[in-house]
């Protein structure tokens, strides 16, 4: 079992898959193996793809992947779908659009449930990026949930973030207003064979003039028709341009640093929450404090002080 990290580094699919499962389950083995693979990470370029449901993200990813494969690059894909808050289960259906990639050994696709994480990502996504990176993938594509409007967390993990829109979807512009505007490195107007493309592009351009990510770079707006493979090559080139821009302006290292920061925060958060709410040390105490709060014998802030006091002492 201990050589799972070594096998991951060799690119063995079953070991990659198994280590991802361990990471998702936050098993002790995951921590030990993740430590081993970290030195071998940092090579893969991470692209985040976000946008509303029905914008064709999966098809876009499928076509982008085929283009990267033509260029001889290896691709990892992380497709995230929401976990039901009621049952804890999830329906992971993004592979439907990518079935032909299943048998390409230069591609590894993993579907993940959010498992309680908000912001459009899954809790273990940082680990999964590292694992795919360590396994020798040149490109890692992260597809966010695509149902909510506040899927901004993807910028914490992606080197380049694509925001995908479609013409005529009434809520497109609203989505932008809701904060997605700030996260895009590239806008993609997909399904550009539909009417209203010019309008959608024009609206975007005018919004970009008002708010832009980087002051010295105007966020480009691209049109694609993923279904007909149109605009894909241009998109891939534009991502390359953005990569070069990041490197030239020393923003690349800053981005990566931010990702590690987010990852560290997430690991600590998970461990801390686990420590407080799941481990036997605290579980009884927490339960009784909740009872006390319900009976108005104590207020939630004092209860929090008490728990944190115990940890911090």
């Amino acid at each position, binding site marked *: 079992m201990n050589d799972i990290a070594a096998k991951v580094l060799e690119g063995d699919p*079953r070991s990659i*898959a198994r280590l991802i499962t361990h990471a998702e389950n936050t098993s002790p083995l995951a921590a030990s193996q993740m430590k081993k693979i970290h030195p071998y990470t940092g090579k893969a370029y991470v692209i985040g793809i976000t946008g509303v449901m029905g914008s064709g993200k999966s098809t876009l990813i499928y076509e982008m992947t085929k283009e990267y494969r033509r260029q001889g690059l290896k691709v990892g894909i992380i497709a995230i779908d929401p976990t*039901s808050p009621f049952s804890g289960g999830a*329906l992971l*259906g993004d*592979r*439907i659009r990518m079935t032909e990639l299943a048998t390409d050994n230069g591609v590894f696709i993993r579907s993940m449930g959010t498992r309680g994480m908000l912001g459009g990502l899954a809790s273990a996504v940082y680990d999964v990026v590292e694992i795919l990176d360590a396994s020798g993938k040149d490109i890692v594509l992260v597809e966010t949930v695509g149902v909510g409007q506040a899927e901004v967390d993807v910028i914490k993990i992606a080197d380049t973030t694509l925001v995908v829109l479609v013409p005529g979807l009434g809520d497109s512009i609203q989505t932008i207003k809701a904060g997605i505007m700030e996260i895009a490195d590239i806008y993609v107007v997909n399904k550009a064979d539909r009417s209203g493309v010019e309008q959608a592009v024009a609206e975007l351009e005018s919004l970009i003039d008002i708010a832009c990510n980087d002051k010295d770079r105007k966020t480009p707006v691209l049109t694609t028709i993923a279904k007909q493979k149109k605009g894909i090559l241009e998109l891939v080139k534009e991502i390359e341009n953005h990569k070069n821009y990041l490197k030239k302006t020393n923003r690349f290292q800053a981005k990566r640093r931010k990702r590690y920061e987010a990852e560290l925060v997430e690991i600590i958060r998970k461990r801390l929450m686990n420590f407080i709410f799941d481990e036997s040390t605290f579980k009884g105490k927490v339960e009784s404090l909740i009872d006390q709060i319900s009976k108005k014998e104590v207020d939630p802030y004092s209860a929090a002080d008490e728990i944190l006091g115990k940890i911090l002492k």
Partner: protein
Amino acid sequence: MNEKIRVLVAKPGLDGHDRGAKIVARALRDAGMEVVYTGLHQTADMIVETAIQEDVNVIGLSLLSGAHMTLFKDVTSLLKKKGLNDVLVIGGGIIPDEDVSNLKKAGVSGVFGPGTHCDDIVKFIRKNVKK
């Protein structure tokens, strides 16, 4: 630890009847499992590769065209060839009794026909899942 049963629901062959597959996928989701659904027209290669990458505990095959003897067996023998011995395989469809015993011999552990209660599938998976 935060383990979840992961299931691949797949439709091998050309059959397009996906009502059962979709209902089962949703029922398993509602039972707290993570269900990967890959859509129609899957080859045995696609199913097995997907099962590897998604590290599923269970593969649920659904087929109503009657080609189950060929197509289900294609999947189980490929699983064996690749050494995936810890994946539970179940199947559903219009499957006559005499085929059921043959399929079980070939490694399809549970076979569910029309009129199956979704809970029975959930229970079967929970009881027989191997890892």
